[in-house]
């Protein structure tokens, strides 16, 4: 029996590679896995290599959206800390619409490329997890630069430090749901464009 990579790896790869190239890309990975990686590294090493390769495709497919999402989050945090206000409604509406738009676009684009309805939610998960890391890092940098008493008062007035650091994590599941909606539309549009 020929060695085979983890089945979930191929399933994940399918979501982040275009429909037109999936067969050749997964074939290339399978060929490399079987003809050089598995003989040299053994089953566990080869599976680890395969997982790393697939996560590379996920990273390349999500990093732009994650950077946009994290950029919007850090920009909003900077605004709240350096230009405090008593009425956060307008800022909340704008930043929520921007974040939702980024996630919808990420889900739509990923599902459009792969032709898979599940790709949107997967893109939402990858985007929000990467963005959470970037946002927490960005917020920490902001705090390292601005931690004078005036700014600390602004931070407390805008929800506190805990909210600024934890909100990106709390957004992972809602982000998956929103990108999932974009993905449904993207995959449906792709099927319509291909003629059913």
């Amino acid at each position: 029996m020929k060695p085979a990579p983890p089945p979930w790896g191929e399933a994940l790869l399918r979501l982040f590679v275009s429909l037109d190239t999936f067969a050749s890309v997964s074939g290339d990975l399978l060929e490399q896995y079987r003809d050089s990686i598995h003989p040299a590294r053994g089953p566990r090493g080869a599976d680890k290599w395969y997982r790393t390769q697939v996560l590379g495709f996920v990273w390349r497919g999500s990093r732009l959206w994650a950077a946009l999402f994290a950029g919007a989050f850090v920009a909003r945090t900077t605004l709240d800390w350096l230009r405090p206000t008593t009425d956060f409604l307008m800022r909340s509406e704008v930043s929520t619409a921007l974040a939702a738009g980024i996630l919808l676009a990420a889900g739509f684009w990923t599902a459009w490329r792969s032709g898979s309805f599940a790709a949107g939610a997967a893109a939402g998960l990858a985007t929000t997890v990467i963005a959470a890391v970037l946002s927490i890092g960005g917020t920490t940098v902001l705090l390292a630069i601005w931690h004078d008493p005036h700014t600390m008062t602004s931070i407390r007035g805008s929800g506190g430090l805990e909210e600024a650091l934890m909100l990106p994590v709390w957004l992972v599941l809602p982000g998956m749901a929103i990108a999932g909606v974009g993905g449904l539309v993207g995959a449906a549009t792709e099927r319509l464009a291909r003629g059913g």
Partner: protein
Amino acid sequence: MAEVLGTFEQAVLLAILRLADRAYGREVVREIETRLGREVAAGAVHATLERLENKGLVTSKLGSGTPIRAGRPRRYYRLEPAGVSALNDARAAVDELWRGLRWPLKGHA
């Protein structure tokens, strides 16, 4: 305006040139790894191939599969005249930067 190529794009195009009619994804990865002497991510190579194809520097067509690939097709890449031109421009730019200098450099650090 001539296409400006990044270093990795040049590596991929030169691998396609060397491999000629054997230039499909797996072989391109192997060729680059041999030349650079390090492991490269398949995703990086495939993303670059897709970008080069979108720029019109290479074209591709599907070939047949093999048992080791579970019958999945190979996608063969071919350099287009625009790709050859871009490589020539890239080489000329590097040669111009090195003109008058002796290689290898004698370090002062």
